[in-house]
């Protein structure tokens, strides 16, 4: 197959260059994918301006869990109390801390609300840290790859996810737009490359994550749905670099395919990939 050469000047709009190339090669049967993934503006704004999302409502449940776990409330609540009083080692009992004549304290049974209750900011910080940890640990739990006969590979939930749960990272190589364009041109020549360029904006800076390389990570295999996505993309700063994470938009049942909106609405892409419309 004859390839377009590089002497075509790069226009600022990537898609147009591609389109030109497509016309030149005339390869309409199996076009090198001219669609791209874009973080939709609405998502983007939500992401940048609004408060960090909440995985679960800040739980006043702690009291229930504390009930079965006295040890936690002990360490939490007994600040300032003398710990040196006859420490009893009772093999069967959980209560091994200070007791005078075996007398237990009420705070071992009931959590002190003030220390258990967290301010909104600490709750959010903790959620943020938990997310960062999951991204660093490359968490991909509860997901499996399945081959769909009409659309190729896709990712299916192997457990239930709750709305707001972290599902998977869209992992790849982070780059700026200039490099992304160069790469995209390069990929355009290879019809098997597919499109894994995810353009997004974080704090006003345009980035792209290139996941073209087969890495074994699952984020790049998640399919598109415009009408019925169950994931949303969020940007997350980890070690001062933006990362893309896919978060459950609704509760996801075990066995459901996970989908998100690629965000590409351009006519160009739609023409070649009519499935983008759905």
């Amino acid at each position: 197959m004859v390839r377009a050469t590089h002497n075509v000047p790069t226009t600022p709009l990537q898609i147009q260059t591609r389109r030109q190339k497509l016309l030149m090669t005339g390869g309409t049967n199996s076009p090198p994918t001219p669609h791209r993934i874009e973080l939709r503006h609405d998502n983007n704004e939500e992401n940048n301006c609004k408060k960090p999302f909440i995985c679960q409502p800040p739980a006043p449940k702690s009291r229930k869990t504390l009930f079965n776990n006295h040890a936690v409330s002990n360490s939490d609540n007994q600040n300032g109390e003398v710990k040196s009083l006859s420490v009893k080692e009772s093999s069967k009992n959980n209560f091994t801390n200070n007791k005078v004549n075996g007398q237990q304290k009420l705070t071992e049974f009931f959590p002190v609300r003030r220390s258990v209750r967290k301010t909104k900011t600490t709750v959010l910080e903790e959620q943020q840290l938990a997310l960062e940890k999951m991204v660093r640990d490359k968490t991909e739990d509860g997901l499996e790859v399945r081959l769909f006969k009409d659309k190729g590979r896709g990712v299916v939930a192997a457990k239930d996810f709750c709305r707001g749960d972290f599902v998977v990272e869209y992992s790849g190589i982070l780059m700026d737009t200039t490099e992304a364009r160069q790469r995209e041109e390069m990929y355009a020549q290879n019809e098997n490359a597919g499109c894994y360029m995810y353009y997004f904006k974080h704090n006003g800076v345009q980035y792209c994550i290139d996941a073209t390389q087969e890495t074994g990570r699952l984020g790049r295999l998640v399919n598109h749905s415009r009408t019925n996505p169950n994931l949303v993309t969020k940007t997350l700063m980890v070690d001062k670099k933006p990362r893309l994470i896919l978060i459950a938009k609704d509760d996801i049942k075990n066995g459901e395919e996970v989908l998100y909106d690629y965000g590409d609405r351009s006519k160009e892409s739609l023409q070649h990939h009519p499935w983008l419309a759905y």
Partner: protein
Amino acid sequence: MFEARLLNSAIFKKVLDAIKDLLNEGSFDCSDSGIQLQAMDNSHVSLVSLNLKSDGFDKYRCDRNLILGMNLASLAKVFKSSGEGDTVTIKAQDDADTVSFMFEAKKQDKISDYEMKLMNLDQEHLGIPDTEFSCIIKMPSAEYARIIRDLSQFGESIVISCTKEGVKFSASGDIGTGNVKLAQTINFDKEEDSVVIDMQEPVTLTFACQYLNSFAKATPLSNQVTLSMCDNVPLVVEYEIPDLGYLRYYLAPKIEEDEN
């Protein structure tokens, strides 16, 4: 603006008598649903939970939730000066640092006014989970007071053990042992004399006499007392305040010395 009027000030007096043994001061949380107080004693072994519903008051108004922190000994002094059967009206402005009590005598044309300084108390609140209790014992409150008083002479702690045969209170010490057994008795003529035992599972728990005795100070509030027990859970001793709410005590169990 907060205003609560209670026809019989004696009830409040009894409540104070019932809690001032355990607590030096208390924060009364006032909201439109009523007045609540929750506080632990200094040793953090027991907890007092008082709930007075707004419906139970003769007149009740609470525009904004407010916390009235009071020294209970001082409050007891104020109520001591009230006469039997006086009507009391408690008033506080939203941001005030004082609370006022007005007592109106029933027979005479006499009005006494007292104003007391509020305290800013920084008290710990405990989250008390709902518990399915294994045993719930309802018994005459005077009987409870009596048993605890008698057994306190024998030792520092009392073992309460509830089986399907009934409930057994026992204490032992240097001078010997004491056991009091109560079986379920339902008295239709005098309901307040009944002993009702609702048992799902047998429970045996040990408690310090000192606290059980302090709880008995609430005896004048109610004819009956309810003891709720569950393994490894604090005991709940509840006195219902007729038409007004309840006074509950929570007490952490003791671990028996010879357990291991």
